[in-house]
């Protein structure tokens, strides 16, 4: 196996905010998202603990945000005018850590310490331990309200920084999400963009079966949010949607990103079993092979 960060400078180049979304850029970011999945796979397989399915479904979203759209600076994680990302679906943090590491917030070779004793990479995000992590997560439901607080602070400060939050679709079951939505709409927080990783699966089954979410766009619209719907593994669509969201005035924006849970590994896709399932060695090898295959497709 080859390390995906053999040449870290090149491999992890940032396309600064405003860069035109060329096909090459989209392909490069797509390829990286695929590589990051292999890290997540290794982390979870190595520790025999963690959540693969929901990490895989947000690979492209996190990659697009951290390597292009978010104005953050790994050298100054506390820079007060940085954009904020609230990673609300905390169980999927293996992907967040992977992306943060590749973005330079901490060494990539720290990733295998994930969930181990004395690690900075806790089972769920802990802001005081992990550079680049903005808020604690794990218990679901906090993302919108916390992000609304950040957006209010930005407005009070007269700052142009923008606030982003990534939610799971199962997470939408939680009442405090809707409280946060009402609050953000009341204050017309147009400096806030929420992205729902709409993969149709939660812990014990599909959302259809466990707690139906449809009609999802109608729900957010009725709560006075501006709704954008995209294909959440299509980096081009993600980049465009993030730009469009920045242009909306007078309303917070939600991007419903249709994704596939376990994306990239055929036997994991759309399966609740891989919400928190741990691969055995054969499954690990098979998954790795599929992921490498997928990544290669973007390289050509």
């Amino acid at each position: 196996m080859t390390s995906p960060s053999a040449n870290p400078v090149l491999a992890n180049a940032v396309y600064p905010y405003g860069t035109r979304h060329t096909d090459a850029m989209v392909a490069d970011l797509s390829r990286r998202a695929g590589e990051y999945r292999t890290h997540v796979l290794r982390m979870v397989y190595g520790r025999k603990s963690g959540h693969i399915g929901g990490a895989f479904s947000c690979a492209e979203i996190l990659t697009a945000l951290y390597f292009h759209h978010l104005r953050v600076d790994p050298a100054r994680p506390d820079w007060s005018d940085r954009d904020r990302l609230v990673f609300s679906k905390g169980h999927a943090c293996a992907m967040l850590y992977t992306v943060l590491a590749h973005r330079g917030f901490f060494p990539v070779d720290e990733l295998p310490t994930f969930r181990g004793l004395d690690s900075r990479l806790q089972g769920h995000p802990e802001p005081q331990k992990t550079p680049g992590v903005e808020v604690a997560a794990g218990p679901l439901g906090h993302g919108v309200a916390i992000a609304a607080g950040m957006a209010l602070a930005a407005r009070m400060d007269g700052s142009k920084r923008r606030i982003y939050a990534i939610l799971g679709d199962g997470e939408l079951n939680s009442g405090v999400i809707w409280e946060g939505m009402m609050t953000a709409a009341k204050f017309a927080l147009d400096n806030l963009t929420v992205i729902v990783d709409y993969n149709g699966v939660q812990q014990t089954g599909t959302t259809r079966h466990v707690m139906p979410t449809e009609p999802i766009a109608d729900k957010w619209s009725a709560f006075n949010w501006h709704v954008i719907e995209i294909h959440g593994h299509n980096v081009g669509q993600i980049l465009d949607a993030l730009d469009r969201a920045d242009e909306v005035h007078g309303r917070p924006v939600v991007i419903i990103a249709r994704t596939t849970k376990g994306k990239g590994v055929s036997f994991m896709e759309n399966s609740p079993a891989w919400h928190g399932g741990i691969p055995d060695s054969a499954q690990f090898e098979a998954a790795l092979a599929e992921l490498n295959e997928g990544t290669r497709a973007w390289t050509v």
Partner: protein
Amino acid sequence: MDGLIRNPLGSPSSMRKAYGEALVELGRARQDVVVLSADVQSSDFSYMFEAVYPERFINVGIAEPALVDVAVGLASSGKVPIANTFAFLFATRALEMVRTHLCFGGANVKLAGAYGGLSDSFDGPTHQTISDFAIFRSLPNMTIVVPADPLAVRKLLPQVAAWKGPVYFRLCRNEVPEVFTDAYEPKIGEGVTLIDGDDATVIACGVMVARAIEAARSLSRQDIRLRVVEMHTIKPIDSDFIVRCAQETGALVTVEEHSIIGGLGGAVAECLAQQYPAPLERIGVNDTFAESGPYLDLLDKYGMSVEAIVAAAQRAMARKQASSSHATSEVY
């Protein structure tokens, strides 16, 4: 020391009005203070801040989980948010937010718990709060401060705001006797001796401090010298101070507007059992829900009368007598 308290106690004055005024004062002193409420600013009196600093006031509606989470977002952006709602709602409805983001995540949010204890007396047990000390005491990194009168509110609120990390500031809805003179200078974390004595120590907090003083004054007529200590900080508890009182007086009584389980009485019991076992009587609500009714009647009916404190002090002293050979023998 006696000079810290009024004799007689001052006439009743509104705690929440003092709080509202102190909040406005704080807003003037600190630009980073943001005040939030959940559609009860007319109850918790944060409306007074809203009136002066509307641009730093946020009403999230009847949504206490969001109240705390929005405050978390503000804190993580450098603000010092002071969230306001009923004490029971912080201690129960929004507790997961408090635990996860304030205590674990480290968000520098201050919670002002209005209507503490039985003080929302007519609204009844759903709106009363007799478990908040126990609940917040169990959370790592939480600080719990309970002012005893309007002056204490004014003196402690700026310290609460300046304290590093989350604080739960427990308030009373009603008019309560003014206890302190201007000489009172509380510091978060430190117990205060209000009346000296060596027959027994009464450790009290919040609006029960006034009743503890009355009990001591009444016992002094029988030549019993009760030490009265104000413990405005329930966590971190001032253990050294408590142990010293146990050593010097050999018998203790805790007095709080809270269940006798897990609050001030629990903190003192843990401290004594660990460091200096001594007779302790706990005055508070006896592990039951109260009911609707006039505030002072409820305090009396549910075990927190001056007479109950007097009787508890006498029981504690009798127990000290019975085990007198022990009182000064164990020090750790």
